[in-house]
């Protein structure tokens, strides 16, 4: 067991970092909160209230570590229905009631609720929510407000709106539509521009800053009115005094009606599913590899929702996009969530009048983009690659959700999945007979190895996955686990996907998670497609190499290297580098290796963020295996950003007598003494006289890369040369 840490001291040590990342998150939360509230037909401030209450309550009572709570994307659809059918005051009452229900879910330890839904159905539901958001806001983004009964109609009318937008003659509308289009472009291309300074401010905040700047430019420089039509500006951002003065009390008069309770149930269902999925996804990103207490978090979210409902705010859920940003900016504990709420309060107190200068289309562009991310063609492609039957489930859920509603949608998805499973197995009895049986055996093998062995019988699908999950969750992630499906005649996609997630989790935390016993299923032709597809199978060798690949092949010949263009998934040795702490490595390819693999250059594909906030990045990196151990450190060029980081508590290690090196380079590491001793004159001269690279050591190997993009062949040569010489210098120390 680890010794007891000095908690308070540690907390204050990381506090500046957390406040910093809370600040960055609040920059996104502000425009998103406004937008999400408006998309649900609530007053814009309602979203901010939810974020503030959520941030404060969940950071105090919650059980997760680096999540951010606030108004959620998924809820837009249900809240919209609730507000239009019940009216705003009664909708607040519904929100309060759903908060109580969510709390109850927490108390009854129903954190496993999300496990009862097949993953393709959840994907379908999320895609439908994405389309609801996209369909409705797209028209406002192009300054073309319309009101339709059916959510599908909004989607069908998108081409007409496009056509109208091209033929606008009103200057106010043209400018409004332009604001929307430019904002959408910012959202789309922001992730592609990997510039540190640009990335310091998140894309939604750029939109806010630019549009406020634009408005001031017209007012102060040109002395004209804002050219964007008045009806397309945000209206009704109250000042803080007004917010306090007219808090709307929830109206509980409709408590007896069926529509009220169906809204409550829908809100509760979506809020808890969204939160649970987000918590699960964020746990994978947590740099300190902690496990969240989902039930405690549900209780806190419920409490926050009750509070938010009484204060005139929306539901509070755990949100993935903001949490990802939080992790990426160095958050380590819940204080960042608290800081994000505090900054939001400050924004509202100080800048509430400035916020009315934001054009509505710009704000809606942010939502259109999030909606698109939820329902992007990539999602469909991924599901199709798993199996055709998954696509059926996906589309059944999607259409029923759009046509009837979220609850019907998700249950249609569940029903479709069950039917498909029955058809695939040609047996109802397999499920009927075994669904209630305890089908999972887990024990710690009593010999020296202390492996955990898990055997699953009968069938394993979303219906009884929770039994398997219960057992697996009782295993510390740094142990070895073997899951044996050989006695199991059917394993569905939901389970396979979760097994994959466990594999990733265990790999990251130093354990092993092996799934065995599925080989027999392969030969069984009746077996679902999904099953084989999801097993990590090496990609089919691609014969047609690209030009870059052929030049790499030539380079390999010239330099006497080994070239391998295939995708390699076995990259566990990279995950111990700090750089990949909050990133998920997918695979490496185009590998050039030198002399018994001590030097390896490869292209790598990794992702940042999870779920809809996921960004895939490809880069070229050099990995050097060292013969001896060296201290762990990270070295990068020193810039403006690093000075900002320094304020936030990231400490640069100064090297004595080398002020030039210290000024130009930014050196990080835990063991300051060892690093100072390691960086001798030779090494420092080497770094000073060579091009800048990001160099990172994990104790026994080095990771070196230039930019976060693929390198050209020339750059590869440079990188290779740098690495070879660096290795020589280090081996002489």
């Amino acid at each position: 067991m680890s010794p007891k840490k000095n908690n308070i001291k540690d907390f204050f040590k990381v506090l500046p970092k957390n406040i910093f990342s809370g600040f960055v998150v609040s920059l996104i939360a502000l425009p998103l909160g406004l937008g999400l509230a408006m998309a649900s037909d609530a007053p814009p401030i309602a979203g901010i209230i939810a974020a503030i209450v959520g941030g404060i309550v969940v950071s105090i009572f919650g059980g997760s570590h680096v999540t951010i709570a606030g108004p959620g994307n998924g809820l837009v659809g249900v809240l919209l229905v609730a507000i239009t059918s019940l009216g705003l005051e009664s909708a607040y009452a519904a929100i309060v009631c759903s908060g109580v229900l969510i709390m109850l879910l927490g108390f009854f330890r129903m954190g496993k609720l999300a496990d009862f839904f097949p993953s393709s159905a959840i994907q379908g539901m999320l895609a439908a929510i994405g389309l609801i958001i996209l369909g409705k806001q797209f028209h406002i983004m192009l300054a073309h407000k319309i009101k339709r009964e059916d959510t599908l109609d909004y989607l069908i009318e998108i081409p007409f709106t496009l056509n109208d937008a091209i033929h606008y003659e009103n200057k106010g509308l043209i400018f409004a539509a332009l604001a929307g289009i430019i904002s959408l472009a910012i959202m789309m291309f922001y992730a592609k521009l990997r510039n540190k300074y640009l990335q310091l401010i998140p894309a939604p905040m750029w939109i806010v800053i630019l549009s406020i700047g634009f408005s001031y430019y017209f007012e102060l420089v040109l002395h004209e009115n804002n050219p964007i039509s008045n009806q397309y500006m945000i209206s009704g951002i109250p000042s803080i005094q007004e917010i306090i003065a007219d808090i709307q009390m929830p109206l509980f008069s409709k408590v007896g009606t069926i529509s009220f309770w169906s809204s409550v149930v829908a809100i509760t269902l979506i809020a808890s599913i969204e939160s649970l999925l987000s918590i699960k996804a964020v746990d994978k990103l947590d740099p300190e590899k902690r496990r969240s207490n989902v039930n405690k978090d549900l209780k806190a979210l419920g409490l926050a929702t009750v509070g938010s409902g009484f204060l005139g705010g929306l539901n509070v859920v755990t949100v993935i996009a903001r949490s990802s940003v939080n992790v990426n900016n160095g958050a380590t504990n819940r204080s960042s969530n608290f800081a994000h709420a505090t900054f939001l309060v400050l924004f509202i107190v100080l800048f509430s009048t400035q916020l009315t200068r934001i054009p509505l289309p710009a704000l809606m562009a942010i939502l259109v983009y999030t909606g698109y991310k939820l329902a992007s063609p990539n999602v469909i492609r991924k599901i199709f690659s798993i199996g055709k039957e998954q696509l059926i489930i996906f589309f059944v859920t999607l259409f029923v959700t759009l046509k009837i509603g979220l609850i019907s949608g998700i249950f249609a998805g569940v029903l479709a999945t069950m039917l498909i499973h029955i058809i695939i197995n040609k047996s109802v009895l397999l499920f009927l007979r075994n669904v209630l049986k305890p089908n999972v055996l887990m024990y710690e093998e009593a010999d020296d190895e202390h492996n955990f062995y898990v055997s699953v019988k009968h069938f394993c699908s979303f219906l009884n996955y929770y039994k398997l999950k219960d057992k697996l969750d009782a295993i510390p992630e740094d142990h070895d686990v073997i899951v044996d499906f050989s006695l199991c005649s059917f394993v569905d996609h939901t389970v396979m996907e979760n097994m994959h997630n466990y594999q990733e989790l265990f790999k990251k935390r130093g354990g092993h998670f092996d799934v065995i016993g599925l080989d027999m299923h392969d030969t069984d032709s009746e077996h679902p497609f999904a099953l084989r597809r999801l097993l990590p199978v090496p990609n089919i060798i691609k014969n047609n190499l690209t030009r870059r690949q052929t030049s790499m092949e030539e380079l390999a010949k010239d330099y006497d290297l080994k070239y391998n263009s295939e995708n390699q998934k076995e990259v566990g040795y990279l995950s111990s580098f700090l750089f990949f702490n909050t990133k998920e490595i997918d695979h490496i390819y185009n590998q050039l290796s030198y002399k018994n693999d001590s030097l390896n250059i490869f292209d790598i594909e990794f992702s940042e963020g999870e779920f809809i906030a996921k960004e895939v990045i490809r880069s070229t990196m050099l990995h050097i295996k060292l013969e001896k151990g060296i201290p762990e450190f990270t070295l990068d060029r020193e810039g403006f950003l690093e000075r900002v980081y320094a304020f936030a508590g990231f400490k640069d290690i100064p090297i004595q007598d080398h002020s030039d090196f210290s000024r130009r380079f930014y050196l990080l590491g835990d063991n300051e003494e060892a690093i100072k001793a390691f960086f001798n004159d030779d090494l420092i001269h080497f770094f000073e006289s060579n091009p800048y690279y990001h160099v990172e050591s994990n104790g026994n190997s080095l990771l070196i890369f230039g930019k976060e993009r693929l390198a050209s062949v020339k750059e590869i040569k440079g990188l290779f040369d740098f690495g070879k010489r660096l290795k020589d210098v280090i081996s002489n120390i």
Partner: protein
Amino acid sequence: MSLQPFKSIAIGAAFSPNLKANLYEAARLSLFFGSKLFLIHVGEASDDKIKTLKVFLNPFKKDNLDFEVVFKPGDPVEAILSVTDEKNIDLLILGAVQRERFIKYYVGSIARKITRKAKCSVLLLIKPSVERVACQHIVVNGLQDPKTEQTIKAAFYLGKQLEADKITIVEEIKQEQVAIKVDDDKSLRRANIMKERIKLRENSRIKEIIEHIPEKYTKDIAIKSQPIFGKQGYSIGHYAQISRADLLVMNAPSKMTFWDRLFPHDIEHILTELPTDVLILQ
């Protein structure tokens, strides 16, 4: 403890395709234990039937198999149970049914009723065979129960008689005993410490039982104890199946009520799905 637990063995002899294999297994066991074999036939007595049975058992004649055919007309369940009472049977052998198409065995409705009501020990055979299949691995339960000590002793006796290589004692520990619910890292660590403690306690309990068994029964056999956290009565069956045990030895359940059958537990899990040959000891 009596070192010869089975003085008399009985088998239901219905004229089915499995009869020969069933009789062979029963006869072999009777010879192993030196006990008397009773063939119970539900129906009227006839010379033809006795003759057929005798022909089947002819090969065992040279080993001096002591057997008796008992005829009893009536309801099969009642008939067999009444004979076991009258003749003071110690062990009743029943055959299992194989579910079509699957490699799964379960106990048919008659055999199941008998198992529930029998006052003697019951052996359920999944694959009776004419040739002897050696019994290598015996799994026995190590529940915290007054009957357990007797059961484990009997298992070692059987192990000795059947020349088994290995005995695994499975201690099923109810999940409820680990009072901590795993929510996060902290509770997980506490739960694991608790489990570790329970395991040590269970292992020492089993060790004590084994120490009380005469050495001649324990010396030539590999002994392993395996604690399992999971559903009682279920985990052991699943374990026996994956560890390819040849015989599973269990305590007889203490009481059976209507509710026990509605919410299956303990022995009922095993009866719906026989993992291997099962011996239920009274």
